[in-house]
């Protein structure tokens, strides 16, 4: 490390009170920013759990649908119409709904029910126990072992329950990529059994799951479906549509953004003010350095180094603290919906960079304007 930066480092860390205050400011801001954005990422990810878990390339739906949970059933003829579109390799129906289960101990538990196409079982989950063909057995349901699994009294294969006076039997335990947002357990069954067990409106298909022959066919399929008055979205488009709904149509996005901005402002206030005080307290020393022969760029490099060092250290501690908290929270709250993504980390890093830049800008301005003559004048 160049000597001038070593001096800068010692000036910074040897002033323990200021250094601690700077670190606390940055760490606190990073912690809050990552916690808020991770929570939002977790919510967004879980809001699209069904889309992610089923994994279909194209989803056909009513244009009024905003999230995967609020289904608007499609008429049966839409299935035939979609299947007749050139470029469609296959199209299958999906039932998505909810039901109230009566468990063995007599309590009731709401559950999300997914009915897979009887012929293909397209979108079936990965089984941890049991055989997939048992889903065709009488009253067969597959329970998803996610964070809500315990709400079904952690069933085993053979565990029974009641659903609208129908007997249901767990024939398999499965795992999925993403847990749902609404805190209810998920059961898979066949499409026809879902229709049979759960009261429905005149139309029954929640979604049509479509696989194109080639990726080039996606655009024409979407256009043909639109002509029929319905909406076809790729998996990524559907996930984005759901995310946009939560971001812009609910208060969640605004509140998270507000909290993130507040965290940024708090971090900036604490760090900026402390760093400015630190510079002010040392301004005569910087002036003395200038008089002795330090060049302006050397003093600037000292300040930038100090700001960068504090920012990176605070960022590291903040990320570590947040990761630890989320890990601990998940140990005790299995459905805690926070995910630290690279985007969250990048966003927090960008904001910390802005904090460091603004703090050091104020310091640099002050140091560059100090005249060594002022040191002589006292």
């Amino acid at each position, binding site marked *: 490390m*160049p*000597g*001038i930066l*070593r*001096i800068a480092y*010692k*000036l910074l860390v*040897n*002033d323990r009170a200021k250094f601690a205050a700077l670190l606390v400011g940055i760490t606190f801001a990073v912690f809050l920013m990552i916690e808020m954005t991770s929570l939002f990422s977790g919510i967004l990810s879980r809001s699209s759990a069904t889309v992610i878990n089923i994994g279909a390339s194209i989803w056909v739906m009513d244009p009024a649908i905003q999230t995967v949970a609020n289904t608007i059933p499609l008429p049966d003829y839409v299935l035939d119409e979609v299947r007749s579109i050139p470029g469609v390799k296959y199209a299958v129906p999906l039932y998505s709904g909810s039901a109230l289960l009566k468990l063995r101990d007599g309590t009731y538990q709401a559950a999300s029910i997914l009915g897979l196409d009887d012929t293909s079982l397209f979108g079936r989950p990965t089984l941890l126990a049991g055989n997939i063909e048992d889903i065709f057995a009488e009253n067969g349901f597959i329970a998803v072992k996610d964070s809500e699994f315990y709400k079904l009294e952690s069933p085993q294969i053979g565990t029974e329950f009641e659903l609208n006076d129908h007997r249901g039997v767990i024939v398999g335990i499965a795992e999925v990529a993403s847990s749902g947002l609404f805190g209810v357990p998920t059961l898979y069954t066949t499409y026809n059994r879902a229709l049979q067990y759960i009261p429905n409106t005149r139309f029954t298909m929640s979604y049509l799951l479509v696989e194109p022959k080639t990726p080039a066919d996606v655009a024409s399929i979407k256009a043909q479906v639109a002509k029929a008055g319905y909406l076809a979205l790729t998996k990524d488009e559907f996930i984005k549509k759901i995310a946009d709904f939560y971001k812009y149509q609910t208060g969640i996005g605004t509140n998270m953004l507000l909290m993130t901005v507040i965290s940024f402002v708090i971090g900036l206030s604490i760090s900026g003010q402390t760093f400015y005080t630190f510079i002010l307290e*040392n301004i*005569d*020393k910087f*002036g*003395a*350095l*200038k*008089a*002795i*022969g*330090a*060049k*302006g760029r*050397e003093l600037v490099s000292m300040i930038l180094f100090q700001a960068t060092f504090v920012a990176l250290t605070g960022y590291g501690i903040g990320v570590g603290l947040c990761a630890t908290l989320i890990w601990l929270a998940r140990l005790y709250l299995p459905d805690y919906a926070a995910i630290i993504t690279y985007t969250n980390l990048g966003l927090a890093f960008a904001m910390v960079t802005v904090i460091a830049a603004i703090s050091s800008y104020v310091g640099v301005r002050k140091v560059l304007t100090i*005249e*060594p*003559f002022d*040191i*002589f*004048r*006292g």
Partner: protein
Amino acid sequence: MAAIAIEAVGLKKWFGEGEARTDAVKDANFEAYFGEMLYVVGPSGSGKTTMLSMISGILRPNGGTVKIEGSEIWDLSNDALADFRLHKIGFVFQDYHLFPRLTTAENVAIPLILQNRKWDEALKEAALNLDIVGLKSRTELPPVKLSGGEQQRVAIARAIVSRPDILILDEPTASLDGDTGRSIVGFVREHILTDKRCIVIVTHDSRIYEYADRILKMEDGKLTGIERENLDAQ
């Protein structure tokens, strides 16, 4: 006669413009020689510090020239001027301006570090210079743990560590009691002043006049005369 270290010709400096203009230094002319301890004395506000700043390359004059060892310093660019100060001039500030968060040795090593010398090498050199000023045992202490006189010695060690030709001391006894002040200036006279070094001291402390080779008097921005001259007696 010794060689000229500093030559100031027609130095002028004013602050403000128009009716607010204040003339701090008015047409100052003087020379300082190697091997000489030159005092600039005068009451507060007489322009001593302003003149000191101009001859040390810190404050640009409005008129006149300053030659150090025959070269005009105010023709240099800002970076060249900073380099010039770093290599040619040692400063002892009135309030010392030592870094409280650095050790004594690190404080002394600063000019060498600014000259891009290696850290360990600079600290070793600093320790040698602290030995010269009698503070060898204080190298690892922070300056705040030292007395006022010791801090002044640390500042002197910092000023001489890069072996400058010219040493500038601004009110070196202002924060010290009479005995300590005299012992410090006596020490500088005895151990720091050499034939190849010129020392300029700005002071209004008459108790240390006895150590001066020459004393220039300043009043209202003008050099009004030479109070004492014993350069030839050296």
